[in-house]
């Protein structure tokens, strides 16, 4: 974790640790073609999660990973059930989730159910804090989650892997796949990966309630297929295809043939990319299918959303240190949703943007412009400006000051505009203005001590905040104005001595997010109140001790009380959650094995889901992951 934080710092291309190993390996193949988009967000905080952490969460959903490693908050409906995010005091619609650079928030609801994204579904993850509309586009108001798949051209040959986790409550997860890389001719290189994964959360709790709070009987089945293929030649041309198919099937109260509810979500994500001469062309097809049924599952309410998108980007250096990226994106949406009254909704959206980045000896500055277009309304112009300056650059440590300001927006979701009776076709896009400033410091010496810390403060005002107005039977209106401000601190320390290593990573966030506009007589009771499900304080801590290949990790998460009503008269109580993980790995000929034992909710804490039913108590999981490399010369 700690190493990843340091390596992922500005100025360095995306880096990752070799899976489970210690030595950093630069995945330079893709990044030499241009900066990753978030590199144009000078002055803003980007947190890459290292591969050792990703490996620890290999069988879990993105919810668990992010909750324990970032200040992102989740409205969690229970294990295997809907989990939506609140980032920096914003709502679930205000975090963009990008898969290989493309927003995959479901267009109907404008959000991502994080329980449907397993950590097994991507190779790299970073979290970008704060508004980033100029670079990311719509939805990036509170922040963005950036998921990526990456090729590995270095490792010739074929590597198979397979793993299984068995947990309490008859819960299990499995995955299997292969990575392959080779040179079919003198001119060409190929790299690819195929993965299938599946999980079955049966949640057979040995108890039906905890301290008088019920557990919800639910079952979730999840399946997925990933296929990545990259082909490049000596001239630097690269073709790639990325496909990700997912199927998430949740049944609540499965034993009750009348009251049971089934929510099935399927996603088809297919993208082709061509890169050459600093030009990137992408085309993608995204399909989201949502079926909901109660009692009788044979005739579900059906929603189908298709999106075709294409994007062309060109990047060039204008002068030493200064680069410009200009791009255009166009998307066509076609949806058929029962809730829209049977009508097929089609719309087009487009974006034009220009991003610049200047890197001087001590300066890093970026200035970006974006204009979005969409059928039926006018998206606001969203510029941003950010900079970083190295205040102190010693041989042993560095101190950098950061700052940025930018506008953001969110295109109204299809539900918000087209849902029968409640939707409002005349909605305006929300508009935000985000400003932030921070300091970051880190040591630059090698072992034994490595330290890093960062302090950020932000202020984000969102006007025309869209609101399913409960006083008007949940009709959608641009009623509110939300002011979110906060402070984030994180720090990490690693100490290495011989075969031993110990590390600590801590993060704290203070988030004050309030509704500011009086729009009716009862809004008096709501003005100035903290937004629901946003705790004022949240903290997480992860500590490990490691000897050779064996590592013991403690993860802790603390959330103070979360109000559940707009006037703050009711709240879910505060809780602290602690997990303990022990993992080790070994090598036997061409086989590498990794085994992990974990205890979740070590202290058997009672905490509640959004429906105020109990979350599970202490539980256990044991997992195994095997890798076989068929190339005898390869070093795993």
């Amino acid at each position, binding site marked *: 974790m700690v190493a990843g934080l340091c390596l992922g710092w500005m100025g360095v291309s995306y880096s990752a640790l070799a899976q489970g190993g210690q030595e950093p390996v630069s995945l330079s193949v893709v990044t030499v073609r241009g900066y990753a988009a978030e590199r144009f967000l000078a002055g803003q905080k980007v947190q890459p999660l290292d591969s050792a952490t990703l490996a620890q969460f290999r069988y879990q959903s993105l919810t668990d990973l992010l909750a324990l490693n970032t200040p992102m908050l989740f409205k969690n409906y229970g294990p295997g059930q809907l989990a939506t995010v609140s980032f920096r005091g914003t709502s679930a619609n205000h975090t963009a989730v990008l898969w290989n650079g493309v927003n995959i928030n479901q267009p109907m609801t404008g959000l991502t159910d994080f329980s449907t994204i397993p950590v097994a579904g991507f190779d790299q993850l970073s979290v970008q804090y704060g508004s980033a509309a100029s670079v990311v586009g719509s939805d990036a108001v509170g922040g963005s989650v950036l998921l990526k798949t990456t090729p590995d051209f270095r490792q010739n040959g074929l590597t198979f892997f397979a793993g299984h986790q068995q947990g309490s409550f008859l819960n299990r997860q499995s995955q299997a796949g292969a990575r392959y890389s080779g040179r079919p001719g003198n001119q060409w290189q190929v790299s690819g990966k195929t993965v299938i994964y599946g999980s079955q959360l049966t949640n057979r709790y040995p108890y039906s309630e905890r301290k008088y709070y019920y557990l919800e009987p639910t079952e979730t089945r999840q399946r997925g297929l990933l296929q990545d293929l990259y082909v490049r030649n000596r001239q630097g041309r690269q073709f790639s295809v990325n496909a990700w198919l997912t199927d998430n099937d949740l049944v609540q109260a499965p034993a009750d043939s009348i009251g049971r509810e089934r929510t099935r979500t399927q996603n088809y994500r297919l993208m082709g990319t061509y890169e050459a001469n600093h030009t990137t062309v992408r085309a993608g097809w995204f399909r989201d299918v949502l079926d909901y049924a109660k009692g009788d599952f044979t005739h579900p*309410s059906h929603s189908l959303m298709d999106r075709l998108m294409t994007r062309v980007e060109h990047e060039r250096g204008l002068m030493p240190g200064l680069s410009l990226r200009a791009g255009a994106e166009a998307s066509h949406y076609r949806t058929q949703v029962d809730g829209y009254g049977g009508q097929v909704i089609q719309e087009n959206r487009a974006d034009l943007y220009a991003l610049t980045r200047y890197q001087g000896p001590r300066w890093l500055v970026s200035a970006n412009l974006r204009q979005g277009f969409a059928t039926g309304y006018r998206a606001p112009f969203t510029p941003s400006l950010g900079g970083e300056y190295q205040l102190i650059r010693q041989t042993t440590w560095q101190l950098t000051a950061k700052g940025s300001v930018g506008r953001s927006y969110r295109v109204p979701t299809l539900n918000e505009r087209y849902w029968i009776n409640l939707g409002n076709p005349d909605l305006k896009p929300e508009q935000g203005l985000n400003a932030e400033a921070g300091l970051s410091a880190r040591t630059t010496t090698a072992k034994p001590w490595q330290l890093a810390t960062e302090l950020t403060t932000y202020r984000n005002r969102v006007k025309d905040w869209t609101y399913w107005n409960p006083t008007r039977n949940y009709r959608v209106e641009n009623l509110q104005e939300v002011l979110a401000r906060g402070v984030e601190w994180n720090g990490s320390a690693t100490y290495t001595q011989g075969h031993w290593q110990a590390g600590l990573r801590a993060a704290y966030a203070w988030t004050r997010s309030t509704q500011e506009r009086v729009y009716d007589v009862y809004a008096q009771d709501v003005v100035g109140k903290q937004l629901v499900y946003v705790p004022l304080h949240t903290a997480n801590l992860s500590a490990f001790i490691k000897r050779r290949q064996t590592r013991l990790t403690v993860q802790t998460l603390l959330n103070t009380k979360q109000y559940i009503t707009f006037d703050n008269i009711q709240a879910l109580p505060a809780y602290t959650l602690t997990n303990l993980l022990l993992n080790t790995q070994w090598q036997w000929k061409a086989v590498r094995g990794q085994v992990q034992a974990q205890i979740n909710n070590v202290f058997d804490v009672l905490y509640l889901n959004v429906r105020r039913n109990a979350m599970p108590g202490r539980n256990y999981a044991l997992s195994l992951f095997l890798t076989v490399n068929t190339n005898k010369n390869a070093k795993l």
Partner: protein
Amino acid sequence: MQNSKFLLLAGLAGLLASCQTKDPEPTPYESGILILNEGNFSQNNGTISYLSRTSTAAKYDIFNQVNTRSLKGGVSGYTEVDGKGLILVDNSTAGLDQVEIVDASTFKSIATLKTPDIENPRQVIRVAANKAYISCWDVSGDFSAGTFYKEPGYIAVVDLGSNKVTKKIPGIRANEWMVLAGNEVFLGSRYNGDKLLAVIDITKDEVTQKLTVGTNPRPFAVDANSRLWISSGSEMIRMNTQTKAIEARIAAGSDATKTPSAVGISPDKRTIYFVRSYYDANYNSKGEVYSFGISDATISTTKPIVNRYFSSLNVDPQTGNLYGTAVPSFGQAGYVLRYQSTGALIDSVKAEISPAGVFFK
């Protein structure tokens, strides 16, 4: 008196053994008003607030204050039976509904009734000593498929001696409102297809008759002349409880799209109050409060008593004051507005989420 004997003994013991006394259990909720806050269905955050008749501020979530745990669903009903309170709790997940039985004067939990005895509990009434009826819809299905209300619903018979459900009486679809008259309970329904009113003999715990009376029949009171009043669609129906004959169907105003949605009767059981409600073009609930006498041949809706919509209307049997509940939304506290029977506003008290009824004690 059991209590004073205990106190005397305790006092003696205290003298002898340096104050081992225990104060008598305080009874903070002996009398006053309980506000039943339905909560927001998906959040399972129903509560009961307590309001004394002389106070203008409510005490919130008294079940949680006493028992240090919250109710786990919406509060759909409450009544008291011989010193015990029965709180109907409706959880948004099937199979998790329950009835909390508490000591009515302290609110301490005594017992909990659960699934499969209790499923979608709607209303509870006392029918005899230590005996209550709870109307239950049973498990609800898919609303859009028309299977939301199970056919039939049932009445859970509760023995407050053992705190157990002793019988489930098959009722009618979506059975909900109940009124006791003599040895019979009149049971209405929320389902507008059947138009049925069922009659239950409480000595046998059986449905003896099913009468077709009209849309969504809601029996709500027995008047001073022992007649049963039922609100149904836009009509008020007066029924002879002996013969079951409908004596009168009185239109509650001339506009059939505006229907009585909340009802109550005066302490002398001679005046009926109701909220006549409708939705405006912006999906807001609108309405006014009207009244009429039990012998009136027509109901005038020219001049409301209170020109305001309430989600429920309750008449204090001690004072005759009207308690209307106002719900701004399911996401913030509602209010209870108190009026004299003339319609003069007394005050307004902030309640909790979605106050949907008031219990007077």
